């Protein structure tokens, strides 16, 4: 209840994109352009072992032979891959060890964004508020990771990807690329060649991670792509809940964000992965600028009775191409996908999921809520498949689209393949226009047109918002309202 009120207040207070500022900080770049030298430059900057460099170079060779995909329902000018920086890092002494060594400008940036980097700030918060640990990635590098000691006591490893390569090579070598192979797709291959940082999580057998983990991605530098890599492993019987947030400055040129996220759940393990994506969406009138969000996210439910739950709130980016998926290999494993995708202005989103049922008695559930406003285009694209061994596989899919105004578009593209006669797949889809009658009813009770729209849309997406960790649900609710600003009238 309080959250909705906040939503309404926020609509009034905020300008269209509040994270659009730039941080002035001295940075070190890789030379513009991409060739084998760039890959070697990045690997050397990170002080990587030979095996890691070889892996990157192999990926780069694969990428050279691939074409950018064109099947998604999005229309954009492809990035000029030779005009980008592939590495941008704040100049500091080698790997800051404590917050005091981090550039104050960067600390200020996270403060403005409301991300607690000082552990006592989290602790000093509202009494009873749950703690959560943060890995802060600024352009190409992780600047700080909090609560590491406390997590280490539980045996949980939470660190930047670069550090994992140095400190836990056996885990990285075992799992990296095992869910998303380097040649999986154009953007995954590119990421594999030039990824610069990201987060690494390992939860040992039987451990329930004692707090929420989160990574906050910030693109700051101009003409720079962000290529992060996240790898999360929940060993047998482990549980972890992880959240990522993203913002970027307002810039006139498009910026490229091509991430790869791999999740691995062993027997009886559970991973809950939530995303609140608020990259700069570009100018709402001209469509100029904004982030190209080309992301590959996949979970491997390798173990029996393992479970992975994806929840995403996608409100930003100029173009979104993203399909968080689950490979349901383990017997009785469960995959879930809860999605809110909101497009406004000139945004284009083509997003959905793949639930690939490989093992017996696997179950999956897809709840997708798409909201289109302005002159935007919003596509749900999903695949549900049952392979011959997936006896007793079950899926339930519900895709709801809400249209606001007359110039936007919503599309639903479901693919269903059952190669096992016992599979039970259900699919429900609805498309509705924001009801003038409901709007008038709410306005008759005193809500402005914008407040009424925010309230109705929050109602429409509520089922998915409830899947988010409590404190982020409030943020997401506000974001829903903000991203719809200017859609009424």
């Amino acid at each position, binding site marked *: 209840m309080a959250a909705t*009120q906040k939503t*309404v207040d926020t609509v009034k207070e905020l300008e269209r994109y509040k994270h659009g500022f730039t941080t002035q900080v001295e940075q070190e770049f890789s030379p513009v352009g991409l060739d084998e030298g760039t890959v070697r430059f990045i690997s050397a900057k990170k002080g990587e072992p030979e095996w890691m460099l070889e892996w990157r170079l192999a990926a780069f060779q694969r990428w050279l032979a691939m074409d950018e995909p064109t099947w998604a329902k999005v229309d954009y000018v492809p990035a000029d891959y030779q005009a980008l920086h592939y590495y941008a890092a704040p100049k500091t002494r080698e790997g800051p060890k404590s917050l005091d060594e981090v550039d104050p400008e960067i600390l200020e940036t996270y403060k403005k964004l409301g991300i607690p980097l000082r552990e006592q700030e989290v602790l000093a918060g509202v009494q009873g508020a749950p703690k959560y640990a943060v890995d802060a990635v600024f352009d190409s590098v992780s600047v700080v990771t909090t609560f590491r000691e406390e997590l280490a006591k539980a045996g949980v490893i939470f660190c930047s990807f670069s550090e994992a390569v140095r400190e836990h090579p056996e885990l990285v070598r075992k799992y990296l690329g095992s869910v998303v192979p380097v040649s999986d797709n154009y953007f995954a291959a590119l990421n594999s060649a030039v990824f610069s940082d990201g987060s690494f999580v390992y939860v040992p057998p039987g451990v329930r991670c004692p707090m929420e983990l989160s990574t906050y991605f910030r693109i700051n530098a101009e003409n720079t792509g962000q290529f992060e890599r996240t790898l999360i492993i929940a060993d047998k019987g482990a549980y972890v809940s992880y959240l990522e947030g993203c913002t970027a400055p307002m810039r006139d040129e498009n910026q490229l964000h091509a991430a790869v996220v791999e999740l691995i759940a062993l027997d009886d393990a559970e991973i809950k992965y939530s995303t609140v994506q608020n990259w700069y969406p570009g100018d709402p009138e001209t469509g100029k600028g904004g982030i190209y969000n080309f992301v590959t996210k996949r979970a491997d439910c390798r173990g029996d009775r393992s479970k992975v739950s994806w929840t995403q709130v996608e409100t930003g980016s100029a173009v979104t191409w993203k399909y968080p998926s689950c490979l349901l290999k383990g017997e009785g494993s469960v995959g879930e996908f809860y999605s809110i995708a909101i497009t406004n202005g000139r945004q284009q989103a083509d997003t959905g999921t793949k639930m690939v049922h490989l093992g017996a008695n696997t179950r999956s559930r897809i709840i997708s809520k798409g909201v289109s406003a302005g002159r935007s285009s919003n596509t749900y694209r999903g695949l549900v498949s049952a392979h011959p061994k997936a006896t007793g596989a079950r899926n339930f899919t519900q895709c709801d689209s809400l249209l606001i105004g007359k110039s936007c578009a919503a599309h639903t593209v479901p693919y269903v393949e059952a190669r096992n006669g016992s599979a039970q797949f259900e699919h429900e889809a609805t498309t509705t226009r924001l009801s003038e009658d409901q709007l008038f*009813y*709410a*306005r*008759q009770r*005193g*809500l402005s047109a914008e407040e009424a729209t925010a309230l109705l849309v929050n109602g429409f997406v509520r089922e998915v918002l409830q899947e988010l960790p409590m404190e982020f649900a409030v943020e997401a609710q506000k974001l829903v309202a903000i991203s719809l600003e200017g859609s009424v009238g």
Partner: protein
Amino acid sequence: MLSISNLSVSVGDKPILKGLSLDVPSGEVHAVMGPNGAGKSTLGYTLAGRPGYEVTGGTAAMLGEDLLALEPEERAARGLFLSFQYPLEIPGVPALTFLRTALNAQRRARGEAEATAPEFLKLVRAKAAELRIDMEMLKRPLNVGFSGGEKKRMEVLQMAVLAPRLLILDETDSGLDIDALKIVADGVNALRSPDRAMVVITHYQRLLDYIRPDRVHVLAGGRIAASGGPELALELEAGGYDRYGAAA
């Protein structure tokens, strides 16, 4: 409180109200009766500012202020409340959330302090008890899956919490059985006060046995065709609307 003069309204290109005049002083309850299609609901919607109801002539003022120049939410904040004949379902928005958002939006618009969560809950609890509404029901999405009677009780609850000055009840008795009707009427009667006015729109006399009007008006042919005391309602019950001519 409410002063309507020579009001003409079209929906689409069709004229519905044709020079309607009506005065409702503070402290009074006026019934507007009429045959189906006479424009009774149009009157309520026009006063509340529903888009698509085009005023082609005349004026409507509340406490001297031109209503027709205001947005629907501005009319609400000034104390105009329309109880809908068919209350809308609001999926995913709990009734409590809806009600608190509305109350605080109105308070902000009037420059008043917003109700805190405890204040709000105390207020709602008291009013809900009077209307025999279970607080659990208020945690469910507003009107979704509610029976006709429950929806009407929710309208009266909103009325009681928002405490408007001018209440327009559009066919509040439709869909109610006799027990529900009594509860709703008690709720409405509890709101009668010297600084409030009510317009009770109804097709049947039945509701007026429970909400006693000070004046009764017959709406036919797009204007007020006759006015009188409570006895007029009884005459209509006996004689029907035929003598006032066909509906618009």
